[in-house]
């Protein structure tokens, strides 16, 4: 083994000190004038395509469009939480301690809820876009947290309500066994019961280790429920629907309700299998001129030339709104308590090209309309990504759970 002599060691140490000190001082001077946004999501697992690297890109686009000319710089960083709450919490702590001012996205409800408590403890800003659980603005609400484009209540009301109105009054749930699946099953069951329907049963399967759903589908069929509700997402939903078609579930008259589905899932299933399914989103690239212009503008910058979906568009919208609030109160105040920034975000109206006008409610809920879509038949589609047709719009104040019913402790009604 070679020995390191004193001279080399000294030289190396001096060099390293010089190298590290110089950019270090510059970085510190810059940090006071830079707003740092951390986009945390699934970059390598089943939820990668609905957010992932494209979610980071969309936040970057918003930061660039907002411009660095407002007296401060904006830097966007990304990280992979691997759908694990422990990993998510570690990244969040590290980020907030190292000067990240706002954490964005955080899909997978279990991770989304875990990061929620870190943001509150550190008194920083947290905008959740990707997680579904309505608890983020309910029992677990926080004055530091906003929940941006959707939640389980909105999905349950729109998709669940439509299925019940169409005669599907008995339900069986196939549920991913974690916070998200439980919340979605609970909220949908409430709607089914409130409209006079009944829940015939449910199975909870291990997430994310399940690929074969045929066993659960047969149990659902044996219950003779009219609707099978999938309280899951991503590849699980794709597998469930694919296998339901294989086992001829729909041919016997049972209806499928994919309670959370994204356009990427339709892309993965193919229209042949997905046609006729109903789904709820708050964004669709081809819904109106504004969304079309926005989507065509950003699409060339997204990986695999995917169309933006409600989550990636949500990252854009949330970043823009946050930066508006920062510009409003000034960089020094924005580096201070997160609650102050959040209060300003609630005071000013939300407006952008992707979602139009909206508002941020007291409990952190972003209020925008929800849209019920039906997946087109192959003959109706003009090409890739032309997948959905609008069935119904629910106005912003109808789409989400009323403020008083959420059980959010700090809300005064």
């Amino acid at each position, binding site marked *: 083994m070679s020995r390191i002599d004193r001279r080399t060691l000294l030289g190396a140490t001096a060099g390293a000190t010089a190298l590290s000190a110089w950019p270090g001082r510059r970085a510190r001077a810059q940090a006071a004038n830079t707003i740092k946004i951390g986009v945390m999501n699934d970059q390598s697992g089943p939820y*990668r395509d609905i957010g992932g690297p494209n979610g980071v890109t969309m936040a970057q686009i918003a930061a660039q469009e907002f411009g660095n000319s407002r007296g401060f710089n904006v830097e966007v960083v990304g990280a992979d939480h691997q759908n694990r709450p422990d990993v998510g919490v570690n990244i969040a702590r590290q980020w907030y301690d190292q000067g990240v001012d706002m954490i964005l996205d955080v899909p997978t409800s279990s991770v989304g809820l875990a990061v929620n408590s870190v943001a509150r403890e550190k008194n920083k800003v947290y905008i959740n876009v990707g997680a579904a659980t309505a608890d983020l603005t309910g029992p677990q609400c926080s004055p530091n947290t906003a929940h941006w484009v959707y939640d389980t209540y909105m999905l349950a009301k729109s998709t669940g309500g439509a299925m019940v109105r169409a005669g599907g009054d008995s339900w069986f749930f196939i549920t991913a066994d974690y916070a998200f699946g439980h919340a979605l099953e609970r909220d949908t069951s409430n709607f089914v019961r409130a409209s006079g329907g009944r829940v015939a049963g449910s199975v909870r399967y291990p997430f994310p280790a399940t690929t074969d759903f045929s066993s659960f589908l047969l149990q659902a069929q044996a219950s003779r429920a009219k609707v099978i509700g999938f309280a899951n997402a991503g590849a699980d939903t794709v597998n469930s629907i694919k296998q339901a078609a294989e086992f*001829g579930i729909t041919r016997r008259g049972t209806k499928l309700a994919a309670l959370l589905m994204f356009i990427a899932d339709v892309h*993965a299933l193919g229209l042949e299998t997905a046609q006729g399914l109903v789904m709820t989103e708050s964004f669709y690239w081809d819904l109106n001129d504004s969304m079309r212009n926005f989507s065509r503008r950003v699409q060339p910058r997204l990986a695999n030339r995917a169309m933006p979906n409600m989550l990636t568009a949500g990252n854009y919208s949330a970043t823009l709104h946050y930066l508006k609030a920062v510009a409003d109160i000034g960089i020094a105040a924005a580096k201070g308590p997160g609650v102050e920034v959040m209060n300003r975000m609630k005071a000013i109206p939300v407006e952008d090209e992707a979602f139009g006008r909206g508002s941020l409610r007291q409990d952190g809920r972003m209020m925008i309309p929800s849209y019920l879509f039906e997946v087109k038949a192959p003959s109706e589609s003009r090409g890739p990504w032309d997948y959905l047709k609008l069935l119904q719009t629910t106005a912003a104040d109808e789409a989400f759970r009323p403020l008083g019913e959420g059980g959010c402790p700090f809300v005064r009604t």
Partner: protein
Amino acid sequence: MDDIFGIPAPLLFGQLLLGLINGAFYALLSLGLAVIFGMLNVINFAHGAQFMMGAFVAWMLLEYAGLNYWWALILAPLLVGLFGVLLERTMIARLYKLDHLYGLLLTFGLGLIIEGIFRNQYGSSGLPYRIPPQLSGAWDLGFMFMPIYRGWVVIVAAVMCLATWLVIEKTKIGSYLRASTENAALVQAFGINVPRLMTLTYGAGVALAAFAGVLAAPIYSVNPQMGSNLIIIVFAVVVIGGMGSILGSVITGFGLGIIEGLTKVFYPEASSTVIFVVMAIVLLARPAGLFGRA
């Protein structure tokens, strides 16, 4: 209607059958692993990625070359097997004399890289692949609706397992193989090219994984992480059956499929854990596995 443990009998029969079908995948995948471990002493952690590659190659053949499922069933294992041969020649062959751990680390890394490349190229949500028209539709068995394609999977998997077992246990080339795992130097002294035999064995094991991938493409979402979801279970199957035991991995594959299927009825939350519980019990009672030689 007759109930068994509070579950209607027809439902239970259906679940048993489904368990058998999933067991077919476990058997086919663990077979490849057992062949590779038994002959090469390499724990092939890239098996899941190679399974995924089989499904993706099937999709590519259809998408870019217009070749249907039946072509894919032959071509995809050949292509992916060839890729396996390349890996063996350039990398894995250098590790035979070292501890198992090195082979495990190398193949694990390779698996992650392959998965990452596919994820970057095709995203994570998957690609559509349809059941071939000749096998679509279903039989009504009275107690359940049995898709023809699933029946096909069980039959093909069983035939494949039997064929592999016959080749290794009953043919001349199989006897060379078994001999060279016992004493490679001696077999080489008889004029048999042992390194080439090893290369072909690895290629064949990988081809088996790819074959299972093609079988899986029409029923599971074809996505980059489809292999990593299965591979952990398959490793448990191999360990329970006894590392390197071909018959053991086949029987255990089908058996555990059934156990898992029943768990999905009685306590679905535990369906991903039950196999590991079985593994723990088996290892305590028989450390070499059910069919392994201590």
